[in-house]
C-alpha cells in the first residue's frame, strides 16, 4: 500500500515535535511520545482509507463511496486533533489514547478491505462487498433492518426472561427440597442435555404460533443451564451458614431468601451467562426456520436474494446486539456481587 509507506515519512518528524512539546515532563516523555506517535499513525491510516476510496474507480455501482471517504477524512482529523489536545479532553481523551492502536489497526484493515474488494476485486465481488456497500444497506434498507432488530429483541427478551425465571425457580426448588429434587432431577437429566433446536419440529406444530414456539425454545435453551447452576449453587451453600441463621432465629423462608439464594447468586450468573449464549443460537435458528421476522430471518432472506452486503450488515448488527446483551449481564452481576473479590471482567 503506497499510502502506508508515505505516512511513515511524514509521521516521524511530527511525532518528534510532539515529543518536544512534552519535554517539560521528562518522566512521561517516552509514553506520551509513543501514544502520540500511534495517534498520528492511526490518523494517517484513516486518511489513507479515505484516499483509497477516491484514488481508483469503483468496480461496481455504489453510491456512498465519496461520503465514506469524507467520513474517513473526518475521523482521521478527529484522531489527530484528539492526539494533540488529549490532555484537554480529560477522561474521553485518555480513553481514546488507550484505543489508538485499535484505531490504527481498524484504519489499515478498512484500507485493505476497500482496495481488495471495490478497487481490484482480489476477493470475488458479490460475495465480498466493500465497506460502502454495507453502509448503503444501513442507509437504504434501514426500516427493514430496524424491524428485524426489534423483532429479534422482543423474541429474545421474552424467551430469555421466561427461561431465566423458570430456571431460577426450578433450581432453587431442587436445591432446597429433596422431594422436588426426586421428581425433577431425572426429568432434567433426560431432557436437559437435548439441544433446544432438536425441539424445533415438535415446537412448531404444537404451539399456536411460530412466535410462541420460538419463545418456548429460547426459554428452554436458557432454562437448562440456569436451573442446573442455580441448583448446584444452592446445594453447595455451606451448612454453617444455615446453622448461624437458625441459631439467630431464622425461619425457613429466611433461610431460602436470605441465605441460600444470595449465596448461590454467583453460580446463578454463570448459568444466566451460559443460557444467554445458547439462547442466541436458538433465536437465530428459530428465526431462520419458522418466524418470519428478526435478524435470523433477515440473514436467510439476504442469502436467498444473494444480497451479500445485507448479510454482512445484519451480521455486524447481530454481533453488536449479542455482545451488548452480555455486557449488560456482566454489569448487572458486578453491581449485585460487589462483595465478591476479583470477579471476572468482561
Amino acid at each position, binding site marked *: 500500500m503506497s499510502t502506508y509507506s508515505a505516512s511513515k515519512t511524514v509521521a516521524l518528524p511530527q511525532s518528534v515535535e510532539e515529543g518536544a512539546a512534552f519535554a517539560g515532563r521528562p518522566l512521561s516523555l517516552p509514553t506520551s511520545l509513543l501514544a502520540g506517535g500511534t495517534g498520528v499513525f492511526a490518523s494517517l491510516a484513516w486518511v489513507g482509507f479515505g484516499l483509497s476510496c477516491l484514488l481508483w474507480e469503483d468496480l461496481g455501482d455504489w453510491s456512498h463511496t465519496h461520503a465514506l471517504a469524507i467520513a474517513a477524512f473526518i475521523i482521521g482529523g478527529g484522531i489527530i486533533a484528539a492526539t494533540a489536545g488529549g490532555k484537554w479532553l480529560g477522561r474521553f481523551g485518555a480513553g481514546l489514547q488507550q484505543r489508538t492502536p485499535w484505531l490504527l489497526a481498524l484504519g489499515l484493515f478498512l484500507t485493505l478491505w476497500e482496495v481488495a474488494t471495490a478497487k481490484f476485486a482480489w476477493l470475488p465481488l458479490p460475495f465480498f462487498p466493500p465497506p460502502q456497500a454495507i453502509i448503503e444497506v444501513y442507509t437504504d434498507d434501514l426500516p427493514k433492518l430496524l424491524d428485524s432488530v426489534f423483532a429479534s429483541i422482543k423474541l429474545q427478551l421474552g424467551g430469555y426472561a421466561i427461561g431465566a425465571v423458570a430456571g431460577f425457580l426450578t433450581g432453587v426448588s431442587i436445591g432446597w427440597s429433596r422431594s422436588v429434587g426426586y421428581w425433577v432431577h431425572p426429568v432434567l437429566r433426560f431432557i436437559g442435555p437435548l439441544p433446544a433446536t432438536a425441539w424445533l419440529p415438535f415446537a412448531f406444530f404444537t404451539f399456536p404460533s411460530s412466535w410462541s414456539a420460538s419463545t418456548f425454545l429460547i426459554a428452554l435453551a436458557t432454562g437448562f443451564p440456569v436451573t442446573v447452576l442455580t441448583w448446584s449453587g444452592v446445594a453447595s451453600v*455451606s451448612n*454453617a*451458614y444455615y*446453622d*448461624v*441463621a*437458625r*441459631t*439467630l*432465629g*431464622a*425461619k425457613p423462608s*429466611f433461610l431460602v431468601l*436470605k*441465605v441460600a439464594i*444470595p*449465596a448461590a*447468586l454467583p453460580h446463578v450468573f454463570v448459568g444466566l451467562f451460559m443460557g444467554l449464549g445458547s439462547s442466541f443460537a436458538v433465536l437465530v435458528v428459530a428465526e431462520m426456520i419458522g418466524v418470519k421476522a428478526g435478524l435470523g430471518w433477515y440473514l436467510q432472506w439476504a442469502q436467498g436474494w444473494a444480497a451479500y452486503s445485507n448479510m454482512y450488515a445484519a451480521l455486524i448488527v447481530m454481533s453488536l446486539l449479542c455482545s451488548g446483551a452480555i455486557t449488560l449481564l456482566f454489569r448487572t452481576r458486578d453491581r449485585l*456481587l*460487589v*462483595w*465478591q*473479590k476479583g470477579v471476572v471482567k468482561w
Partner: protein
Amino acid sequence: MVALAIAGCASPATVGASLDVEAVSHAFDIDGAILPVLDDISFGVKPGEFVALLGPSGCGKSTLLRLVAGLEPPRSGNLREDGDPIAGPFPSRVVVFQDPTLFPWRTVWDNVALGLEAQGILKSQRHRVDAAIDLVGLSTFRNAYPHQLSGGMAQRVALARALVNDPRILILDEPLGKLDSLTRITMQAEIASLWQRSGFTTLLVTHDVEEAVFLANRVIVFSDRPARIKADIAVDRPYPRHRGDPILAELRRNILGLLGLDATW
C-alpha cells in the same frame, strides 16, 4: 446485653438463664455404624455462670453445644433452659462458632443485623446493631465486606452478631481457636469483661487449658470420645484475673494431669 449497655433496663440477675443437662447421650450414624459421642452427661449451670467445657480434640464437646443451641435433638436425655425443654434453636441461645461464618455478601452492619432481621424486628431496633458494632470496636468498618477484615476483626463481628440478640446463654464454640496468640489474649480479656458487665450465662468449648481457667467460674473436663464428665472444677478467683496468678497455674497443672498431659509439666 446490648440493650443493657444502652438502656440499662435489665439487671444482670434476669439476663442469664440457667441450663440443665440431664443424662444426655448422643451418637452419630456413620454409614450404618453407630458412633457414640456423648455418654450420660449431666450438669447444671447457674444463671450468669461462665462454664468452660474442656476435653481432647474430637471428644464431642462441640456436639454438646449443638444440642444446647437446639440445632440437633439428643438421642436420649433432656436439656432445659430455665426449666423449659430446649426444642429447637432460639435467639436467646446464640452460638459463636470457631469460624466466624460471616455472610460474605453482607457488610459488617448487615451481618450484625442478621438476627434482628430474621426475627422481623430490625426496623425498630436498628440502634442495637450500631451499639453492638461499637461494643466490639468496629464502628469504622460497618460498611466493609467480610473479605476486607482480618481474622480477629471477623470474629469480633461474629461476637457482635451474637450479642445484638441479647442472649441469655452465650455459646462459644472455640471462638478464638484460629486466631493468632496476641489477638487471642486481647479477645479473651474482652469476652471476660463483656460477660461481667452483662451477666449472660456463658458456655465455652475450648481445648486450651489456660483459656479455660482464665475465663471460667467452672471448668468441666471431658474424657475421650464418647465423652464423659471426668471432673467439675470450680475456679474461685476474682475478675479481672491475671495470667501469672499462681493459683491458676496450679489449676492448670491439675487439669493437664487429668487429661494425661502432666508429663510435659
